[in-house]
Structure formats: structure tokens, C-alpha cells
């Protein structure tokens, strides 16, 4: 019962953060709302007993992603964002997304899924599986990170200075 109350509080934080991202006029407020939504996701991870993923979420999303987005907001001009919030077809897209939500909720409520009580994944089993059975995809993911690092540097390098 107490976990249900905590779940409702956390999901209220997540949903208000998400709504703040799409409805706030100032870009800085949108970035901070995104921060609250991501921290709320970490709270849901904690509530479902996945504490390692919660730590990863706080470190990567709360630390790195929000900082990178704030840097991008700083390095591009703020005046650019004033008049770009809405297009004139916004009722159409609102109807479209609400229709998608209705279809998803009807599908969720009508599907019978065999559930069980909340069960925790042991951290030792998780890391054994991650580094043994999923070892090669893990290494490929690190290779993808290296390629993205080099790619970002190459994209942002000034072309007229070399050669």
C-alpha cells in the first residue's frame, strides 16, 4: 500500500516533468523539467528493485545528458527559441497523440498477462550475465561510443584551419 502511494508521487513528478518539457515557453525551464522527469524515472527503477540501473540513470541522464543539453542551449542563441514553440497544426498533432494514447491504453487493458509478485534481480547474476553471455554486444557498445566520440570531434572541427 505504501509502495503504491510512493509510486503515485513519483509518477506525478515524472508526468509533470514531461508536460513541462513540451509546454514551457522558456527553453531553460524545459531542460530542468527534463531533469525532473529523468530523476523520476530513476525513482521508479528504485521502486522496482533495480538499484544499479537507478544509479546509472542518475549518473548518465542526470549528470551527462542534462549538462550536454544545457551546454547546447548556452552555445546556441536563446533568441532563436522564442517564436519556434508551436506550429499552426498543433490541434491535429494533439489529436494524433491522444489517439495513440487511447489505442495503447485499450491494448494494455485488454491484454491478459501472467504476472507474479515483484522479484528482484540479483546484482551478481546481472553482472555475470552482462560480461559473459552479453560480452560481445557490450564490447560493440563501447566501440559505438568510441566512434561517436571521434565523429563528434570531426563534425565540429573547423575545416579551413587544416590542410
Amino acid at each position: 500500500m505504501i509502495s503504491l502511494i510512493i509510486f503515485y508521487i513519483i509518477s506525478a513528478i515524472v508526468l509533470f516533468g514531461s508536460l513541462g518539457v513540451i509546454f514551457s515557453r522558456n527553453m531553460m525551464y524545459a531542460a530542468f523539467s527534463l531533469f525532473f522527469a529523468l530523476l523520476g524515472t530513476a525513482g521508479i527503477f528504485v521502486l522496482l528493485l533495480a538499484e544499479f540501473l537507478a544509479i546509472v540513470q542518475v549518473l548518465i541522464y542526470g549528470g551527462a545528458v542534462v549538462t550536454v543539453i544545457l551546454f547546447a542551449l548556452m552555445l546556441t542563441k536563446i533568441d532563436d527559441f522564442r517564436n519556434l514553440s508551436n506550429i499552426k497544426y498543433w490541434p491535429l498533432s494533439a489529436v494524433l497523440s491522444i489517439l495513440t494514447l487511447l489505442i495503447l491504453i485499450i491494448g494494455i487493458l485488454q491484454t491478459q498477462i501472467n504476472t507474479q509478485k515483484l522479484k528482484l534481480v540479483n546484482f551478481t547474476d546481472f553482472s555475470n550475465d552482462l560480461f559473459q553471455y552479453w560480452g560481445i554486444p557490450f564490447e560493440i557498445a563501447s566501440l559505438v561510443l568510441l566512434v561517436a566520440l571521434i565523429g563528434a570531434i570531426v563534425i565540429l572541427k573547423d575545416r579551413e584551419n587544416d590542410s
Partner: protein
Amino acid sequence: MIELVHIQILSAIMFCIGIYGVITRRSAILILMCIELMLNAININFIGFAAFRDFSQSQRIFGHVMIVFIITIAAVELALAIAIILRLHKNKSSVNIDEIDLMKW
């Protein structure tokens, strides 16, 4: 107690908010933020199924491993997209995606 349906509905609402933002907004950085919202909705769905469905232990661990990979790919995509946005801002001094039509026709 929390059930799977609660987690699924929260994930669906968050995903549709992300869809609305991606369609409506015209600033490229805001579209990136909405894509991050959608990826987080998918992560919530994965963790819900991994915690509540009657899977075996290895399938349950697969859900957690998949979340690690999704977070990695989201970070990669964000870094590259912000590099492209900064380069476009340097070249065209705008991040409005309606004005970025270099590859049109």
C-alpha cells in the same frame, strides 16, 4: 501493491507526450529532449516487464541488460545530434528545423 498495469500506463502516457513534442516543436534541441523522454518511457516499460512478468531468471536479466544498451545508444545519439546542431548553428545561425533544408532536392 504496484502492478504491471500501472507501470505500462505511465510508460504509455510518457511516450505519447514525447510523440506530441516531436511533432509540434520546431527547435531541434527540444526535439532531442522529447526523444530522450520517449527512450525513458521504453526503459520504464522494460523494467516493469522484467520485474513483474513470470519470466525465467535469464529473461529477467535480459530486460536489465537491454536497458543498459538503450541508455548507451541514447547517450551516443545525443552527443552526435548536438554536434550536428552546433555545426548547423555555426553555418546557418539557426536551429529551426524548417530552415534546415540543405538536402532538399
